[in-house]
């Protein structure tokens, strides 16, 4: 625990004021307890500002985008394309047209697998990924490999949950067409040093997709700095509504790719026998976009930038630095993932010996504490850890030290109920 931050260092984040923006955080559960929401890696709560931005569209000028010549459509289109520009700036994308709105990170990975993968992965090619991957950044590649006759290599981790860089280098040396790697692990909280890794992978000739579903909400992420070719994330994990997600891709690659979904809005000209495609980004946005969700994502980006991603990360690390030693000091508790705060985000996976995570979560719930129990869409990782499931607490900007205390207290309750 070398880089543990003292509790006082985070006074910069005015959590009380932030919490006032999130009505759901003051709700009580059926058991009469105020909710302690620690399932942010699954999805985040939404501030008034985001909900109001969406409601404003519906109540003031809702109309379908792009194709309307009238004022309401123009206003809604401007809000939608404005959200794209905000998102582009947020991740430092060279051009807004490289930002494609999709439903979620999962659709983003599939878009790349279908539209880039089917033309670029051939029999005998090698896809490299890791045991840390969420199913959404693993199964699409596994299936693409099965379909094309490519092989898939899964890089392992050390005891602390850190990626095996030597194995990764060895795999890259063998020649990889694609590296599909998560930025931060939703199961363990590990941060992969993607900048260094991407440099190595690009040097070896691989195309690189980074799954940033757990990093863009919590850390400053800069696609130009990372140097990857594709990056995907989900709005719902970063204060925006479910239904908003992004795949960022280098324009040079996106321009060469075939489309993914076909239909309205993504075409330039349709004739009975042949069709030409629209410009970027619309070539990849077939049909009516979830434009209000995307506008919500734009508002969420504003909110996050208002608070500051550095400050959010520091706050979550402070919470982690507060919780981890308490967990490690609790009898019968096993903690997974890096113990050094320098290598991690605010995702804490643990188990209580003798109590299945499902039972832990049920008992926690009776105390108002919301945590995730299960494999976290990380079955290969769970196999590697030798467990079927873990209990996972994950932080966001509105969480407090008192909520960490509530979690520790709930562990006591669970042990009492199970007579451990």
């Amino acid at each position, binding site marked *: 625990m070398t880089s543990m931050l003292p509790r006082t260092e985070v006074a910069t984040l005015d959590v009380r004021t932030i919490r006032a923006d999130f009505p759901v955080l003051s709700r009580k559960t059926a058991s009469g307890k105020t909710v302690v929401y620690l399932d942010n890696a699954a999805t985040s709560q939404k501030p008034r500002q985001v909900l109001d931005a969406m409601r404003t569209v519906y109540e003031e000028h809702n109309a379908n985008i792009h194709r309307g010549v009238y004022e309401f459509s123009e206003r809604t289109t401007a809000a939608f394309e404005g959200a794209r520009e905000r998102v582009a700036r947020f991740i430092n994308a060279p051009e807004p047209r490289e930002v494609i709105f999709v439903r979620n990170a999962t659709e983003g990975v599939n878009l790349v697998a279908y539209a880039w993968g089917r033309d670029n992965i051939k029999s005998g090619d090698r896809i490299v990924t890791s045991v840390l991957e969420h199913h959404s950044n693993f199964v699409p590649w596994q299936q693409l490999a099965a379909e094309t006759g490519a092989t898939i290599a899964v890089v392992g981790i050390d005891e602390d949950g850190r990626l095996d860089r030597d194995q990764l280098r060895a795999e890259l040396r063998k020649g990889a067409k694609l590296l599909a790697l998560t930025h931060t692990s939703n199961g363990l909280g590990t941060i992969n040093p993607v900048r260094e890794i991407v440099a190595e992978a690009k040097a070896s000739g691989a195309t690189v997709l980074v799954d940033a579903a757990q990093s863009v909400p919590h850390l400053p992420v800069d696609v130009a700095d990372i140097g990857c070719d594709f990056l995907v994330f989900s709005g719902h994990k970063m204060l925006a509504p479910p239904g908003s997600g992004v795949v960022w891709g280098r324009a040079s690659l996106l321009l060469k790719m075939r489309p993914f979904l076909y239909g309205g809005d993504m075409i330039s000209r349709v004739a009975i026998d042949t069709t030409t495609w629209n410009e970027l980004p619309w070539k990849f946005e077939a049909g009516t976009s979830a434009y209000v969700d995307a506008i919500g994502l734009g508002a969420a980006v504003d909110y996050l930038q208002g608070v500051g991603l550095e400050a959010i990360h520091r706050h979550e690390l402070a919470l982690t630095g507060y919780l981890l030693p308490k967990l490690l000091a609790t009898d019968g508790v096993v903690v997974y993932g890096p113990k050094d705060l320098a290598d991690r985000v605010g995702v804490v996976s643990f188990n209580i010996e003798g109590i299945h995570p499902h039972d832990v979560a049920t008992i926690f719930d009776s105390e108002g504490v919301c945590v995730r129990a*299960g494999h976290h869409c990380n079955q290969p990782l*769970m196999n590697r850890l030798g467990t079927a499931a873990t209990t996972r607490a994950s932080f966001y900007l509105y969480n407090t030290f008192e909520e960490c205390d509530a979690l520790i207290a709930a562990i006591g309750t669970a042990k009492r109920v199970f007579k451990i």
Partner: protein
Amino acid sequence: MDDMYRDYILDHYKNPRNFGELDGATHTYHDTNPLCGDEITMFLLVDDHDTVKDVRFTGRGCAISQASASILTEEVKGKSLEELRTIDREHVLQNLGITVSPARVKCALLSLKALKGSAWGLTEWPGEQSTGTGTA
């Protein structure tokens, strides 16, 4: 919580009845709860008169899934395959004797699913596609 984690539930969880593999089983079925990774394998020894002479289960998972399996096996032994048909979801939940929250119903019913799967290959499991594998 004491509503759900009663003493007898915890006892079945910690000391499951009929736990282990069954050599010479005539019917087996393995199923998992995709949400949490709970696993149950049911083993039946059915004689020529379609009577369940012996039953065992193996598995890992939460107190609810394992206790439910343990309780279910106690009930099954000596019954005919025909009689097993009458054991349905409501029956299992009632036999468990606790109120299970919606997210946990799948845990409570996993053993029933494995039982039905072993007895008839899951044709009795309405509205759900087979996710398990078995032999009979």
